[in-house]
């Protein structure tokens, strides 16, 4: 691969450019040692949410990228709809029993748009050991009004899955049917910040763990929203946790502007509900079309 120069100003970024961490460096070994030393000495910065960009770019995304490129063969379309700078709220469908779609969306934004994606997650994530600090270090935070407003004010690209557990944990028979969009808090946040809403459709995540049953009593016992049964889990044990290699596509729709509303409109339930419904309909339509465009979930077999 040819040596590429990083361009932070975001003026000329070819779509095929190497990810931003691959700087021109004469000696990769020296670079690696410097990196290890910085990590060992704690000599790096995290933001107030606990986001550690260096760890995310150099370790975490590197680990997830093979899944993105080779396992799910994720294809992104209509990238030009993602703003190159400034705050925006990415609203996507949520599916797949385990939220791998969140990881893939993050890789897509990093590799193809060169912007970190700051997701808003359920409070369950932040109660669990390991997952909570991993989520914070990779740039995500709790889905609450204050954090959403703060990130959007800072001009970040914020992502949200308004279906929440209803979406990610829905049975296979309801695949590609959007669930209820919560209380529309995400719309209120976008209106308050005056940032566009970017409707996003993710096709492919529905097939990775086809959920055909739910052990409700065990879920209650463990305090989890569901304990899934798939054709391979728990039948094959840990092997059943390997996601099926479905073909994925991610489409970014035309941004829905909110800056023509007064910020006070965020407190008007009618406005919020109308915009929420509109966003939901747009994403459902995008999903239907993108699913046809993708074709079989497991080419060339099915």
């Amino acid at each position: 691969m040819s040596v590429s120069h990083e361009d932070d100003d975001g003026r000329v970024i070819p779509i095929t450019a190497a990810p931003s961490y691959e700087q021109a460096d004469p000696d990769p070994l020296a670079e690696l040692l410097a990196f290890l030393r910085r990590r060992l000495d704690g000599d790096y910065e995290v933001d107030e949410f606990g986001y550690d960009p260096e760890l995310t770019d150099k370790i975490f995304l590197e680990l997830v990228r093979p899944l993105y490129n080779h396992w799910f063969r994720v294809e992104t379309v209509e990238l030009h709809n993602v703003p190159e700078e400034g705050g925006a709220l990415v609203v996507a469908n949520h599916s797949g029993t385990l939220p791998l779609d969140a990881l893939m969306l993050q890789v897509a934004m990093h590799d193809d748009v060169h912007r970190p994606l700051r997701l808003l997650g359920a409070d369950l994530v932040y109660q669990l050991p390991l997952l909570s600090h991993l989520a914070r270090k990779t740039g995500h935070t709790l889905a609450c009004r204050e954090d959403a407003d703060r990130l959007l004010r800072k001009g970040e690209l914020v992502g949200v899955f308004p279906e929440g557990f209803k979406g990610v944990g829905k049975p296979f028979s309801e695949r590609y049917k959007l669930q209820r969009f919560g209380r529309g808090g995400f719309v209120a946040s976008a209106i308050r910040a005056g940032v566009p809403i970017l409707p996003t459709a993710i096709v492919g995540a529905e097939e990775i763990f086809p959920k055909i049953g739910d052990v409700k009593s065990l879920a209650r016992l463990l305090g989890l929203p569901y304990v899934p049964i798939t054709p391979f889990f728990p039948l094959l044990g840990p092997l059943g946790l390997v996601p099926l290699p479905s073909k994925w596509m991610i489409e970014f729709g035309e941004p829905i502007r909110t800056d023509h509303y007064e910020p006070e409109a965020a407190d008007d339930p009618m406005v919020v509900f109308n915009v929420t419904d509109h966003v939901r309909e747009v994403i459902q339509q995008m999903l239907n079309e993108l699913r046809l465009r993708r074709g079989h979930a497991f080419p060339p077999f099915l």
Partner: protein
Amino acid sequence: MTHTVLVTGVSRHIGARVSNMLAADPDIDRVIGVDTVPPPSLTRDGGVSLGRTEFVRVDLRSPDIAQVIAAADIDTVVHMSLVSAPSRGGGRAAMKEHNIIGTMQLLGACQRSATVRRVVVRSTTAVYGSSPRDPAVFTEDLEPHDGPSHGYAKDACEVEGYVRGFARRRPDVTVSLLRFANFMGPGVDSPLTRYFTQPVLPTVLGFDPRLQFVHEDDAVEVLRRMATEDHPGTYNVAGAGVLLLSQCVRRAGRLSMPLFSPAFEALGNAARRLGLVEYSPEQLKLMCYGRAVETSRLEAELGWKPKFSTGAAFEDFLRSRGLHPLGGVPS
């Protein structure tokens, strides 16, 4: 106009530095420092000079404080006498009494006083608690989901309640309530600074909390400004930015020992019983979920920013204790 300032808690580091600073101010005629114990000796215990502060030994829990306030025509009260950890002898009950009854007595005396114009109270960002269900960054107006239910943080919540009550009853008095992040700096001796000087640091497995510090110099400067100018309201005080606990451990060149949270709690309780550390249950939550606060209100009000960021404050503390990263060279 003559100024007479009363500072409580002068036998402790920050209190002593504040009263020293105020005593050096030519606009202030008298500084009266009170505490339950005499200040540490300058030569032997590394105490801070109080300057021309007049020290009065008063138990805040007794009504004696009212006599001090009445006798000296005090116009400004700086209340710093909040104890963050139970003392070796006294235990939690004495600490609570000191914090809460002490504040009630002091505010009661202020309410009666015709001369008091300004009251500055030191509180802590611990009043926000630490919870996975709260926003990442606390602003002053935010109501936490799980308010603190133990120890120092609960005392501070109750103290704040009394301070707000006082502010309602005496609207003519300027009341400033300061919520400080953990103090950090060469002279600070707190449970947290003692924690970082241990060779091996117990942490909670699977959690890496965000921590925020305020440098002692900045804390003293904020208190000086609040004591000499009118800035009514509640303000968070912290250095810019956050450090993760793992980052602090690495920068200090220490090793961490991750423990499951029940084991961490058991270790904390055992160490407390042995008198090794001051451990209270809210510390477990801080060690899991961390806490960060927004300081823009303070910065807008004072037109001033803390000189030390959280990272710089920690750096200064490490330098003073001769700690450096494992791979680093001692500076």
